[in-house]
């Protein structure tokens, strides 16, 4: 079946779901709710403008909203199961529509991928296929076209997006159960899915940018989903982000990156006269383009990726974005949207690699490598389970950029994106199950949970092994080649092994902090299998953990398979590069993975990280005080706890520089511009007040003035005629 031609169905399905929920089930739900509340509350609401009525209204509402606040404060930190019972019927119907749409979309996406894998049509392989073309407008030879195109890269992304989105939709039915904004959540989730699909389907910068901004919007909406939550009370050291602030921060920080992105697009458009990726990536387009401008443009485009993929120095929003519901973190802030930056660089890989100067990819590599290490160090000390995962996401995205920078093609980075999407989504959904079970996300109040929620623990362990680069798991196959390639890159670049050093150290740290998180949550001392499988005694919290419902554990189990096995797609590079690299069969693939000395070093490093975590948190033979006891260690710990003071720096800049400038402009307007305007008005009035004195009402004075004036004119005339001889 010709799936590719029907690929437009993939974004259309969640769009239809969104519209159906927005205009269909949500109004019905609200209607039903109003009818229900009308039956109980009586006529109190209907008397709108009456003073007495509003007074009673005001009386009644503190109780209502105080209750609302409490539940939201709680739901904010996870436990919203006691939020008011079951999901209303129409809300549930809406979510079912969303899930069904996503399942269908996922199957079409898989069909598209399979078609690309099996097709013999060389044209399709080389150029992909346009599935939608519509000219917004055309000025001379400049066209602003809405164009969707499917090729191998898009096909991979489609599967990732629809797959994770489908599972997250399903999972959310359980996670968001009974939330007052249940329908809104599914609308926004569908909106995100549509936007992300537009982003990956876009065949030119215009469409990509549309998707790019729309995912930013849905990220904003979903991070701020609990927009009415109260900020964390002072005194808590968990530093939980406040959803409205986090949403704002996420949007603005990524927009700052988009500023560079937009300028990059402008330079490219000006130089080449086209937005189209196909045209941009073909050598003929940029032969006459200034190399320096092109390099600058590519670096600026990368700025957009830095913002969206939370790379240093614009990484600050992603940890805060954890204020959103956990399924959102899994879908948007781990698996798909944050990977859009990687996708962008991969999409433009020929431009980066062949057309622009080498500086562009160097910037990508070093920013990525530095961010990987930087985020990993912060992740070492986090106590919030979602924060750990957030910093790990930032770190892994850094890997992907390194992979793109050092690789001969874009397969390395995208392959890591591909595997990462599954295991990181799994990690987040697992953490969501934990939060749902306990009502807290503080790892210090967990421990030994494997006894209570074994499925979650097992799947979480799979994902942890995968991300740590443990042999035979997906992460190993996608991450170790990046590290190896970074070494080769160093060799071919005059022995500059900086990137290799950054990535290998990060690999160690990753293994350590991920297992630290695992042990703190699920394992710990007194546990079985040397602390890997926790026990009741290891549990440090008070709340009674309750196991997740099937809609929540089923996605975990499903995701565990790709999280473990996605790495075995041996011919991924061959597929993605359209056959430019040789296809590898599976046994050669595994053999080559283990035959390299560098790989072995990577394995050793990962194992060392796991071992250290096990010593410190698994059997707790090595207390953390060993490191934080001395002053230097304490200082470093404080530095890491404060995230290198980046947030404070930004806060200062915004408070004093941006707002300072803002107030300066207002003062300038008020005192200088209006000062001049009002001043000239005052001057005229003053002049009037002064000359008013001459209007004394004395007619003889006027007469004297008239004739004195005539006399002066007369004298001037005499002067002109008699003296000047005019």
């Amino acid at each position: 079946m010709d799936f590719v031609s029907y690929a437009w169905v993939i974004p259309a399905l969640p769009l239809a779901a969104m519209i159906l929920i927005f205009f269909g089930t949500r109004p019905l739900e609200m209607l039903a709710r109003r009818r229900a509340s009308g039956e109980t509350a009586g006529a109190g609401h209907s008397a709108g403008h009456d003073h007495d009525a509003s007074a009673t209204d005001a009386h009644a509402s503190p109780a209502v909203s105080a209750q609302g606040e409490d539940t939201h404060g709680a739901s904010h930190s996870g436990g919203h199961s006691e939020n008011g019972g079951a999901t209303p019927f129409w809300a549930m119907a809406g979510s079912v529509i969303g899930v069904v749409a996503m399942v269908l979309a996922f199957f079409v996406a898989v069909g598209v991928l399979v078609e690309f894998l099996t097709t013999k049509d060389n044209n399709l392989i080389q150029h992909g296929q346009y599935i939608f073309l519509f000219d917004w407008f055309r000025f001379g030879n400049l066209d602003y076209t809405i164009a969707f195109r499917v090729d191998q890269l898009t096909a991979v992304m489609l599967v990732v997006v629809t797959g994770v989105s489908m599972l997250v939709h399903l999972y959310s039915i359980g996670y968001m159960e009974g939330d007052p904004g249940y329908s809104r959540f599914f609308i926004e989730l569908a909106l995100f899915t549509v936007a992300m699909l537009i982003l990956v389907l876009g065949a030119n910068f215009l469409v990509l940018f549309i998707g790019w901004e729309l995912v930013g919007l849905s990220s904003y909406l979903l991070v701020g989903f609990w927009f009415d939550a109260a900020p964390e009370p002072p005194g808590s050291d968990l530093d939980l982000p406040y959803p409205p602030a986090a949403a704002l921060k996420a949007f603005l920080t990524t927009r700052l990156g988009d500023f560079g992105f937009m300028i990059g697009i402008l330079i490219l458009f000006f130089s080449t006269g086209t937005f189209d990726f196909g045209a941009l990536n073909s050598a003929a387009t940029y032969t006459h383009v200034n190399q320096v401008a092109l390099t600058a443009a590519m670096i600026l485009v990368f700025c957009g990726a830095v913002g969206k993929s939370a790379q240093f120095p614009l990484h600050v929003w992603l940890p805060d974005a954890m204020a959103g519901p956990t399924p959102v973190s899994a879908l948007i802030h781990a698996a798909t949207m944050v990977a859009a930056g990687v996708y962008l660089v991969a999409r433009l890989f020929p431009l980066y690699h062949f057309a622009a100067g080498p500086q562009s990819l160097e910037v990508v590599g070093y920013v990525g490598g530095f961010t990987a290490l930087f985020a990993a160090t912060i992740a070492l000390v986090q106590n919030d389970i979602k924060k750990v995962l957030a910093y790990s996401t930032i770190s892994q995205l850094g890997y992907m950029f390194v992979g793109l920078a050092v690789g001969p093609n874009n397969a390395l980075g995208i392959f890591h994106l591909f595997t990462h999407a599954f295991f990181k989504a799994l990690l987040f959904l697992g953490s969501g199950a934990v939060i749902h079970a306990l009502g807290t996300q503080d790892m210090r109040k967990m421990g030994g949970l494997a006894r209570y929620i074994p499925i979650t623990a097992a799947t979480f362990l799979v994902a942890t092994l995968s991300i740590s680069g443990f042999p035979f798991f997906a992460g190993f196959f996608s991450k170790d080649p990046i590290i190896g390639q970074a070494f080769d890159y160093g060799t071919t670049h005059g022995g500059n092994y900086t990137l290799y050093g950054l990535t290998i150290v990060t690999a160690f740290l990753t293994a350590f902090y991920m297992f630290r998180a695992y042990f703190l949550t699920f394992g710990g001392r007194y546990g079985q299998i040397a602390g890997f499988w926790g026990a009741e005694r290891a549990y440090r919290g008070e709340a009674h953990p309750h196991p997740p419902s099937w809609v929540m554990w089923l996605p975990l189990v499903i995701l565990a398979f790709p999280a473990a096995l996605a790495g075995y797609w041996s011919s991924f590079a061959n597929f993605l590069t359209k056959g430019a690299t040789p296809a590898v069969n599976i046994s050669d693939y595994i053999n080559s993975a283990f035959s390299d000395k560098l790989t072995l070093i990577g394995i050793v490093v990962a194992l060392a990280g796991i071992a250290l975590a096990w010593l410190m948190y698994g059997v707790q033979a090595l207390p953390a005080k060993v490191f934080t006891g001395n002053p230097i260690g304490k200082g470093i710990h404080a530095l890491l706890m404060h995230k290198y003071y980046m947030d404070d720096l930004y806060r200062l800049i915004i408070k004093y520089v941006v707002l300072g400038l803002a107030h300066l402009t207002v003062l300038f307007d008020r005192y200088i511009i209006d000062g001049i305007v009002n001043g000239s008005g005052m001057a005229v009035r003053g002049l009037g007040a002064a000359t008013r004195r001459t209007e004394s009402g004395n007619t003889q004075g006027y007469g004297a003035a008239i004739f004195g004036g005539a006399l002066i004119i007369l004298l001037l005339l005499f002067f002109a005629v008699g003296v000047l001889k005019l």
Partner: protein
Amino acid sequence: MSLDIPTIAFYLIAIVLVGSALAVVLLRNIVHSALFLAVMFGAAAGAYVLLNAEFIAIVQVLIYAGAVTILVLFAIMLTRNAQSQSSNPFAKQWWLALIICVLLGFGLVYAVGNSAMAVASAFAPVHLATLGADSGTVTRLGQLLYSPFVYSYVLPFEIASVVLLVAIIGAIVIGRED
């Protein structure tokens, strides 16, 4: 300079004119001023006669020396203020007025003697009135003022009559005790 009768008459009239005008302006008693005003009007009528403008001279005597003087005297009588010492005082800035007037006077006299227009015509001889000469200007004036057939000022003249009517009514309305 030949001192014929008209020349002597001119200088006499001029002296009386200037003197009575100065008296009008300078005298402290307003009633005396008004009387000298009548003298001045009469002297002016003499000047008109000298200029062969008999009709104007008659009108001057009738209207100015007669009507206006009476009017002024009535006004003085009706507004007589018992408290004031001087009925015809000067304002504070009289010195300023004096400077302006003297300078303006010199300016005017200088202009009369020196400007291009004045030089061309100022020394034109004036036909002073001689006794028994033909006095035809009244007829011509009449034609010029009233004739409906030849070029005349009949329309302005009619308008002037309307102005007079308005002035009469206005004076009544304003002066009426209410």
